[in-house]
């Protein structure tokens, strides 16, 4: 394939929606035929997903893609140990999109590539497993939903705790009324992150197509110490990127409450003063109909611990006061501690006595199973794209509040925009680099 310049990319992939509307909706697979997968993004998560799907008897990995060739070997080795087929190693994800024999795209890139990769795949008749957070910004998330619906694609978001049985039991417990009426849910994401080292910008390493890596985002000077996760250009921030798991669970436990009406937020960078964009401290209150959700997030609290591997898949609970990824559900008659990552849950009555508890297990495999089942049956997956959109949307609002000076923002669900701050509306959609754009009509 000759390398496409950015203008050609728009014409042949993203812009020519009409042509793709007539494109066949994926291959018809024979009963014993494997589902063929391309993986874009070969960081830790992408490599893990590539290995897990390579292990499955009904799938095979045809492509492993990353603009940085230094990431090839680890992922290729992980896949080749599990399947006979040797994957093609490519830097440009368009090789995956253009290959009619590829059925599924796994998108494990940084946030700024989630939208374009997923939409292009949907247009090309492929189903998608895209990592959380679904989108870089609110508008892009909505476009991803539209693309999935228009091209009738299965799009699963990597919020795997939703597939865990213990989570469903917690929801049933709450629905049964044992906590009474739930009016408040507190979501925590408190941990210790490292400071970025202070090093000068440097040359792009050989073998790394940095221009392609930046893609739709601005091409900031290359700096090996700068983590994409901490920059608005490439991410919705480390808090959103991680907390979306437990916030999604909070929404699930409260019957998938859709849109907040207003968000109050206060954010700052107190401790990790290293040139990052995203705050290291963020407290937000999300006003829903009949329910308030709160988020407490910090990145400088070493005593707050993620649930350890030993607890996640065993019959143990975390130390709740120091659990960095917990959810607290407060009802008129009872209280629940809930842990992400297989942390289980414990319910207390009006006197503060423990009355029920359930251990948890992680659900990565169940989530992947669910995706593959939906690829076959064409049903909506557990963490469907729209669920992903509504779970990250509150964080986008909180981040926008931070960027307009910690202002309270009122949100209109119908237009997915702000009603009380025009400055905030400028952040609904990102600025695209010339030649890279997602069209209004996907």
């Amino acid at each position, binding site marked *: 394939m000759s390398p496409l310049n950015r203008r050609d990319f728009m014409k042949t992939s993203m812009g020519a929606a009409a042509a793709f509307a007539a494109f066949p909706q994926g291959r018809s697979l024979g009963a014993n035929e494997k589902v063929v997968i391309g993986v874009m993004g070969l960081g830790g998560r992408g490599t893990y997903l590539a290995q897990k799907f390579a292990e499955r008897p009904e799938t095979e990995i045809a492509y492993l893609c990353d603009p940085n*060739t230094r990431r*090839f*070997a680890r992922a290729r080795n992980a896949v080749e140990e599990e399947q006979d087929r040797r994957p093609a190693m490519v830097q440009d994800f368009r090789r995956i999109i253009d290959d009619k024999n590829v059925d599924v795209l796994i998108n494990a890139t940084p946030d700024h590539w989630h939208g374009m990769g997923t939409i292009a795949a949907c247009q090309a008749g492929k189903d998608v497993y895209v990592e959380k957070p679904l989108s870089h910004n609110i508008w892009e998330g909505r476009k991803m939903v539209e693309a999935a619906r228009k091209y009738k694609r299965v799009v699963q978001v990597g919020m795997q705790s939703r597939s865990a049985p213990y989570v469903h039991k917690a929801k049933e417990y709450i629905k049964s009324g044992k906590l009474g009426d739930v009016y408040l849910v507190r979501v925590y994401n408190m941990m210790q992150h490292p400071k970025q080292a202070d090093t000068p910008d440097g040359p792009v390493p050989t073998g790394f197509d940095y221009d392609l890596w930046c893609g739709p985002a601005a091409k900031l000077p290359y700096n*090996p110490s700068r983590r994409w996760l901490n920059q608005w250009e490439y991410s919705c921030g480390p808090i959103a990127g991680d907390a979306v798991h437990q916030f999604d669970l909070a929404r699930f436990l409260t019957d998938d409450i859709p849109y907040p009406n207003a968000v109050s937020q206060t954010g700052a960078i107190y401790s990790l003063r290293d040139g990052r964009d995203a705050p290291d401290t963020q407290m937000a209150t999300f006003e829903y109909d009949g329910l308030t959700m709160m988020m407490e997030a910090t990145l400088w609290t070493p005593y707050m611990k993620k649930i350890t591997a030993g607890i996640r898949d065993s019959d143990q609970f975390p130390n709740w006061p120091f659990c960095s990824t917990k959810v607290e559900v407060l009802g008129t008659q009872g209280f629940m501690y809930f842990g992400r990552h297989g942390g289980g849950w414990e319910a207390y009555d009006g006197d503060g006595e423990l009355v029920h508890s359930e251990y948890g297990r992680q659900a990565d495999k169940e989530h992947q199973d669910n995706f593959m089942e939906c690829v076959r049956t064409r049903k909506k997956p557990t963490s469907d794209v729209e669920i992903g959109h509504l779970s990250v949307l509150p964080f986008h609002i909180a981040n926008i509040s931070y960027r307009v000076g910690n202002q309270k923002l009122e949100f209109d669900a119908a237009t997915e925009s702000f009603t009380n701050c025009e400055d905030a509306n400028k952040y609904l959609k990102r600025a695209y680099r010339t030649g890279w754009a997602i069209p209004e009509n996907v």
Partner: protein
Amino acid sequence: MTRERSLHRLLFCVGLVATCCGSGYARWLEIRDVKVRQEPTELGGPKIVIEYDLEAGDLSAAKPAYVFLRYSKDFGETWQLLAPDYLQGNGFGMVERPGHKEVVWWGLGQTGVVDLGQVEVQVRGVAMARIPAGDFAMKSLPGAGRDESKKGRPSSDLPLYYMARYETTIGMYTDYLNEVGGEGAGWNRRMSRTDRCGIVQNSDHTYGVAEGREDYPVTYVSWYDAMAFLRWCGLRLPTEPEWEKALRGGFYLDGDKAKGQANPMPERIFPWGDEAPDANGVYRCNFDGDGDGFEYTAPVGSFGAFASPYGVEDLAGNVAEWTLDWYTTSYHVGLDGFRLVRGGSWMAVPEACDAVTGATQFPLKESSIMGFRGVKGPQP
């Protein structure tokens, strides 16, 4: 009978195992004719004297042998490392010259034995390179081994240490398994693949090396396997700075104290300099593809002409090497996280075989592209 006479009666030599297995430095060094005897002492209990011949040709202060001894007092049932604190003589630790060596084992605690016939001693040597104390051009951003947020950038001014000149081989690792492996600790089924490793578990839980595979680097070893083997030797994994300095060389190759030999290329990209691994059709290390002559791993030392300034070989390519350091990521802070792996491998693109590229791996990961080498140095 006087006590002296009875002690003298205990003196006898036990002709013992020649511990080395083959030629060259690719595996254990050539150690022959190990003899053990017990002698009385005037003041304390008896001492045990171990003699052997070290037949490695080009030993020097810059390229010594690291010699370690393991002993058993119960006919080879259980073994322990002989701690250097109790040893005297010229035949243990860093040994700079070949020839006849003597180690005296005597000190606090019981060293004498009633029946020397119960005692077995294994003497093994690893080819090392000396890396003098001093600063170097550290380009990468190591995980620092600990929480980055607490310690900041690690120092590039390292004390003296020694690094194994070769990656740990299948022959060496199999030797270790035959002492400790038993029913499978340190071995996994993938190791029996002869194209990518070649260690076979026999039905009696002993281990054998597939034909011709002794000199290849051991693979499918987890970080824990690597640590256990090196602890068995009295070594440890290198930190990331130690690994990188061994590749680049310090600003002064004879160290910051002497400052007599400036490093002509302190910021070199590869051990040999800046030329690409396949520049001008010359293959300088084992990376992806078989243009370098190897589809998978290569026997250690196959690219001897392209060693680092200290004579450490195969830092670029062949197998990626576990280091001691782990990596704090946004998602894994507080957990037993990824370990850092350096040096590219037979599956890597040429660029990834450079001084600074690293990858992260779960410590339990067993892979055909990962191996390790040991270091003798101060506690990091």
